[in-house]
């Protein structure tokens, strides 16, 4: 979202009105907006139609990196510490697979966490301007960025969709 320019923040008490508001914005050609909700909701996801999260790629890469590290810390040192015990093979797959498996899980989880905080842009030092404290609890919201000329049209649209409060921030 373009950080400069005015935006309008609208608060909704009901989910169906919020979804109606999003549809209205899409129909009127407003593209730069984000939706706030206290819980994840399939109806909102469906109407927004965003692409799947790339967090899964982080998980896959992290898991594969972990697998490589697990193999590396078990097999790698054999060049320096090649300890032959009772004729057993140096690269002993059953025990080393346990270590590789654990490292896969560990690094997969760490990468998933990293993927989440990077993509969700966390941590954020300041909440968005106009953030309403009811949004984490029992209300929904839309923050829409627009040109100065569209503000009145946008406010009318949001009001019509059932917003209980509409605020203009940064005029």
């Amino acid at each position, binding site marked *: 979202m373009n950080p400069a320019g005015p935006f309008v923040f609208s608060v909704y*008490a*009901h*989910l*169906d*009105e919020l979804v109606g508001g999003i549809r209205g914005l899409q129909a009127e050609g407003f593209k730069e907006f*984000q*939706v*706030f*909700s*206290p*819980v*994840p*909701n399939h109806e*909102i*996801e469906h109407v*927004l139609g*965003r692409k*799947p*999260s790339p*967090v*899964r790629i982080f*998980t896959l890469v992290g*898991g594969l990196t972990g697998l490589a590290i697990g193999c590396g*810390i*078990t097999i790698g*040192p054999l060049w320096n*510490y090649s300890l032959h015990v009772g004729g057993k093979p140096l690269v*002993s797959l059953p*025990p080393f697979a*346990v*270590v590789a*498996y*654990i*490292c896969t*899980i*560990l690094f*997969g*989880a*760490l990468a*998933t*966490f990293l*993927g*989440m*905080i990077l*993509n*969700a*842009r*966390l*941590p*954020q*030092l*300041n*909440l968005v301007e106009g*953030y309403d*404290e009811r*949004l*984490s*609890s*029992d209300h929904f919201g839309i923050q829409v960025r627009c040109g100065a000329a569209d503000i009145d049209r946008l406010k009318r649209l949001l009001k019509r969709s*059932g917003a209980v409060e509409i605020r203009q921030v940064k005029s």
Partner: protein
Amino acid sequence: MDYRLNYTDTDIDLMRSLRPAGRSYWLLLGTLFALVVMGAAAWWNQIQTGIGLAGKNSPVGWAMYITTFVYWVGIAHSGTLISAILFLVRVRWRAAVYRSAEAVTLFGLMTAGLFPFIHLGRVWVSHWILPVPNFGGLWPNFRSPLAWDVLAITTYLTVSGLFFVVGMLPDLAVVRDKVIGWRKKVYGFLSQGWQGTDLQWRHYTAAYVFLAALATPLVISVHSIVSWDFAMSIIPGWHSTIFAPYFVAGAIHSGLAMVVLLLIPMRKAFSLEKYITMHHFESLAKFIIFTALIVGFAYLIEFFIAWYSGARYEQAIFLYRMVGDYAWAFWLLITTNVLMPMLLWIRRIRTSIPWLVAICLSVEVGMWLERFVIIVTSLAHDFLPSAWGLYKPTVTDTMIVIGSFAWFFFLFMIFSKVLPVVSMWEVKEQLEPPMKGDRQS
């Protein structure tokens, strides 16, 4: 699980646990802290004086500390079962209880993690087990289950910690938006700027599913690896292929009982009856019947295999468990772990709070004794009669074990007052969202 609630009431009800504590809370917390200090003092004394203060000695080199270590790792398992596995299979009743179960996992591991250090004796060289190049030219022997154990427990603690923190973020934002003063700053910092935008929820829900999927195999693997600490050796009574599933079932058995034991007073203290209902306890009780049956079956199979194998040392150790020096512990564990939970088949008993408390306490005693019997009897009575010997607890190891229980409950008490004990966003997810149209309830 169908709640007749709305978003607003849910937040108000579930934040009640964060109100300033009463006198009884502080009294209990103070008592627990005193016991933690007692345990810490005993450990310090052991470090200063020597590991001989603990009762373990040849031939019983693993005793109270490793028993308690295995017990606490086991306690941790039900948390991940409830938070991750039940999440993946979409069990709706999980929402109200998983946060506390996850706290049990985290604090169980934080308690278990102390015991290898306590057991080591020379705790100041414990970093030698880590896979980092060091001046001694040492490298962990990754063929040893003890090295797997270090990795497994560390990974389990890390993944559980991440899952706990990630699951908490939206709730911390609710608290941030509802409190004032310095608490707003603290919860503002903890929530890390969470605002519930569509972008945040999209990546959050994806990450949550993957973390649950990664935590799920850990429920099976961590205690399997702990069991291999024993099964990979050749000691009679330990060298068994059923140890992994047997330990995992036992772990979940004790963990579920601990979750019930913690939920019952918490539900009462924070008036959470609308959220944690008798349906939850009944579901957990049914799980306990299931795990008790698996554990009971494993006990029978162990004895059957000892007899059927014809291996004399194996037969001798199982006979020793039944009639030897620690037979009292063996028969007590059979009674408390397997027979007592069978009472839960009766609906009137599994829906009665006093009965649930009594049975879950009995399971806790039984599961600790199970590990004690496995560890101590096998070491006390292995191949050579000339090397047989008995273990007796000492003041030092008893104080440390008591201190560990106090440490676990101390952590849980603090958690229950500073963080939401029931996941607000996941309970709200179960509710009908506020609608103006037809679906408004």
